[in-house]
């Protein structure tokens, strides 16, 4: 967890005020949870950018709100380059939270040397863990992955106090031989071919062609 991020209370709400805030280098956010009142705050955009880039899930706030919070939701702009708004949930050290954690592959599969291709099927999974000990990622070792073999969530070595919430038999990564696509097929594009028209019966089509 990084240093505490300074927050300011947001009293003027609404679209225009929020846009003004973003132009001034702040990000609007809401803090809620633990049966306390919701608080509208603003956070410095630069600090949030570094937190998001590092993949941190829990941040420490100071100023308008003094507590540890979990990033519950993050709204991005259309190009996915800047954060527009954040939903933050208050958490305590001993509280168990359910979060989605990314799965990263480690090592190289022996199956790839036999023309196999590693297919990463599941990129993230839900886990339950203490609020202040959320793993940044789960690592899966694929050094034993042969062709036509599949590793499941059960094969992930989980850190201490972390438990899976998804089915342990869910496939995560597999190694398969890819069939080569027929590129001649692509070249023979029939420009005259047309899709079928919905609601037009065969009789209508015949009449059209006669005309």
């Amino acid at each position: 967890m990084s240093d505490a991020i300074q927050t300011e209370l947001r009293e003027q709400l609404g679209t225009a005020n929020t846009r003004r805030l973003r132009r001034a280098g702040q990000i609007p956010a809401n803090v809620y949870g633990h049966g306390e009142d919701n608080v509208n705050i603003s956070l410095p955009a630069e600090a949030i950018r570094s937190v998001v880039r590092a993949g941190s899930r829990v941040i420490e706030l100071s100023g308008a709100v003094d507590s540890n919070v979990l990033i519950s939701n993050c709204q991005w702009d259309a190009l996915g380059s800047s954060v527009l708004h954040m939903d933050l949930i208050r958490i305590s050290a001993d509280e168990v939270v359910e979060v989605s954690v990314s799965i990263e592959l480690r090592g190289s599969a022996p199956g790839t040397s036999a023309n196999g291709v590693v297919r990463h099927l599941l990129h993230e999974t839900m886990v339950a863990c203490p609020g202040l000990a959320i793993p940044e990622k789960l690592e899966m070792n694929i050094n034993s992955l042969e062709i036509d073999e599949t590793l499941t969530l059960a094969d992930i070595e989980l850190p201490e106090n972390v438990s899976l919430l998804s089915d342990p038999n869910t496939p995560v990564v597999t190694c398969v031989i890819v069939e080569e696509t027929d590129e001649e097929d692509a070249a023979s594009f029939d420009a005259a071919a047309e899709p079928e028209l919905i609601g037009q019966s065969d009789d209508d089509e015949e009449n059209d062609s006669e005309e």
Partner: protein
Amino acid sequence: MALMPKRIKHRKVQRGRIKGDATRGNTVVFGDFGLQSLEPGWVKAQTIEAGRIAAQQYIRGEGKLYVRMFPHRSITSTPLETRMGKGKGEPEAWVATVKPGTILYEIGGVSEQQAKICFARLAHKMPVKVRMVRRRPM
């Protein structure tokens, strides 16, 4: 063969305008890296196929390429040396409508360096400005 819909309601549609940014299909979902459009435009079915082949030839036997756009819209044109009038032309091509932010292709199972080279080859074929993006952390 180039992509086109199987069944449609109307053979010809009005041209319309591409307004705003993509609010759907703007995140990397299947692979690790994506090619994101920065401009609005139409991408022809043949161009989508050409891009797919260019990328597939580079990553042959390694990663997996995902095509995230589909040509749903028909484009009509009047033949050359034809007098004005006589109604709307015949469908000539099928295009995918892309908005700024739309993910056009995704790639998984390759290193970042390989993905960069692959997308550079692919970007040459695209009629819109594009950039490479990675999977969003949250």
